[in-house]
């Protein structure tokens, strides 16, 4: 053997899931902004990945409208990920998207197959409307998934018609729902959310000194996003809406 023979240290994989609404209401500048923002943020994710010895970042992207589709049938590193321009059309089958996400959040028959293990994934949901199918049924299935439970979850609500309550149900927390009201803000928010959640999700968790309750990665992500978007025009984090979950029997 040679003393200098060496291979890369095993890195855990952190998969960043992008779930993008491409239903008919996204037509025009909204879908254009999403296409542009995702393409522009990929090189930044690549940079974060390149010098990160804690984890390798991979991206899995799904679009949903009438049904749902994975952009690639496996997670890919940012350098190998080409975001194809999406066109908008159809309804908003978010429930189906949740079921399909649950299917892929699996080590044995999904995307979480890394031999050196994974960190909890990041799930980013972008939507401008409300679901047209059985969202609650889909979400119930997803909620039983342990990867989903451990994931960092952020939702971006595009425009005034986005169903904030639905998005808050997905993230489990209204503080993780960010509303944007114009196209430029949308681009900025996509960049901020993808970069921040990649940074937090792909590193070993923070430990607080002195026995204080450790901050979770979800808290850390929320805090960092809030700091960066503080005072930004046409962006609102959380809502004044009551932070309660109502049962479905009303």
């Amino acid at each position, binding site marked *: *053997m040679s*003393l200098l023979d*060496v*291979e890369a240290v*095993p890195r*855990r994989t952190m998969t960043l899931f992008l779930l993008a609404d491409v239903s008919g209401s996204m037509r025009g500048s909204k879908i254009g902004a999403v296409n542009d923002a995702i393409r522009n943020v990929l090189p930044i994710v690549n940079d974060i990945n390149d010098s990160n010895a804690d984890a390798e970042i991979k991206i899995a992207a799904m679009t949903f409208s009438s049904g749902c589709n994975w952009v690639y049938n496996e997670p890919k590193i940012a350098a190998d990920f080409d975001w194809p321009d999406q066109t908008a059309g159809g309804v908003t089958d978010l429930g189906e998207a949740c079921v399909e996400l649950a299917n892929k959040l699996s080590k044995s028959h999904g995307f979480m197959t890394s031999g050196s293990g994974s960190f*909890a994934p990041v799930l980013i949901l972008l939507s401008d409307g409300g679901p047209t199918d059985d969202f609650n049924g889909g979400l119930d299935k997803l909620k039983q998934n342990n990867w989903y439970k451990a994931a960092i979850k952020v939702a971006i609500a595009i425009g005034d018609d986005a169903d904030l309550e639905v998005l808050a149900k997905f993230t489990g927390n209204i503080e993780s729902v960010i509303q944007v009201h114009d196209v430029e803000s949308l681009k900025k928010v996509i960049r901020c959310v993808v970069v921040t959640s990649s*940074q937090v999700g792909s590193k070993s*968790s923070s430990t607080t000194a002195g026995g204080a309750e*450790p901050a979770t990665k979800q808290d850390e992500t929320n805090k960092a996003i809030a700091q960066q978007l503080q005072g930004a025009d046409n962006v609102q984090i959380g809502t004044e809406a009551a932070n309660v979950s109502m049962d479905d029997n009303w």
Partner: protein
Amino acid sequence: MSELKIGATVHLTNGMTATVKKLLGEGGQGYVYLVSVNGKDMALKWYKSAPSSSPDKFYKNLRKNADDGAPAPMFIWPEYVTQYEQGSFGYIMKLRPEGYYEFGQFLIARQRFVNVGALLTTAIEICEAYKALHAKGLSYQDLNDGNFFINPKTGHVLICDNDNAFPNGEKSGILGKARYMAPEVVTGQRMPDAYTDKFSMSLILFLVIYMNHPFEGAKVLGHPCMTEEWERKCYGSEILFIANPQDKSNGPVKGVHNNVIARWPAFPAALRDAFVREFTAPILQSPTKRLTEQQWLDILTAVRDDLIRCPYCGKETFVSQTKCMECGKTIQVNNVLVIDKRKLALTDGNMLFIDRDDTPDMRVVHTAQNPNMLVIQNLMSNEIEVQTTQGQIRIVKTNEYLPVKLGLQLKLKIRGYQYIAKIQ
């Protein structure tokens, strides 16, 4: 948002200004800009927002560190601090020179040390740096893989992110990365201090040398999803060394932890003994009994003394392995140079490092007339005073030679420090 625009000016506490020229990078905590200070290019770290729960204390400490100056030349230390302005603050430091790469690049094998000598230089310089920092009464607090920039050709080290260095015992309020923290910090039983720094430093040394994380073996690999809760167990309450001789349940896995499997038996036993001591009970749980930086330096110096160029194939190998690890030939060592407890093999082609820097002080070579006749060349600017077996004194000047002869005693002066060495 406290991002600075190109052309923006920030004011330094010493009355000077820094003009932003370019964004160099963005991290979780802040931005790094190329700035001009008095016509000189420098780097500005600018915080996104106050980096601590007590920003005033953090700011004051930063100013004090800048006033006191760097503990050692390896630190890219805060030189000037900005005024508290535009909702935030920052500090000015030197730009990172060309040829240095993040340690992470080495860990993912995008950068490689050119030789084992350079690797050992890195390990030695990391110990020297923290020895100096702790000697100043400071603790680093957030020591992790992201702090180090290394030159793969020379092994020289630069240490950045020095803004968390606080007087030992005071907390910076900064969070650390669980993978690199001492277990007693991960479990919340102890605040980061000089003793927990020593643990993190040993962990970095293990990574530099063996290129696998010392606490990530089979057991840790068994968790498919590493959550915060699991991290607190794997690096805290249930921490288990990958090479623990008593409990092998977190041992290396073939095909995954190949580096440590190959390198653990290859590097000298003194290193193995030191890491087993540091990373298993009872020392693992006894912060104050951890090896000091000086003890690490003595161990690493012994490892470098063990490293030679094989006289047959010219590749690096360890004398303690008896056979060359490259070509397999048995290496005969007839004479050694003894300095206190140190032993340096006087084999053909070997470079001799007497002090801890990476400049060879002498070299061993055979003569043109007789390939079996070995001589030592003085590569230092100072002369060597040699006492022969008959008691005569002979002077060997720079680039001159003395024979490898049993019983010769050498007096060397390096940077004002005198070494007595004897050929045995």
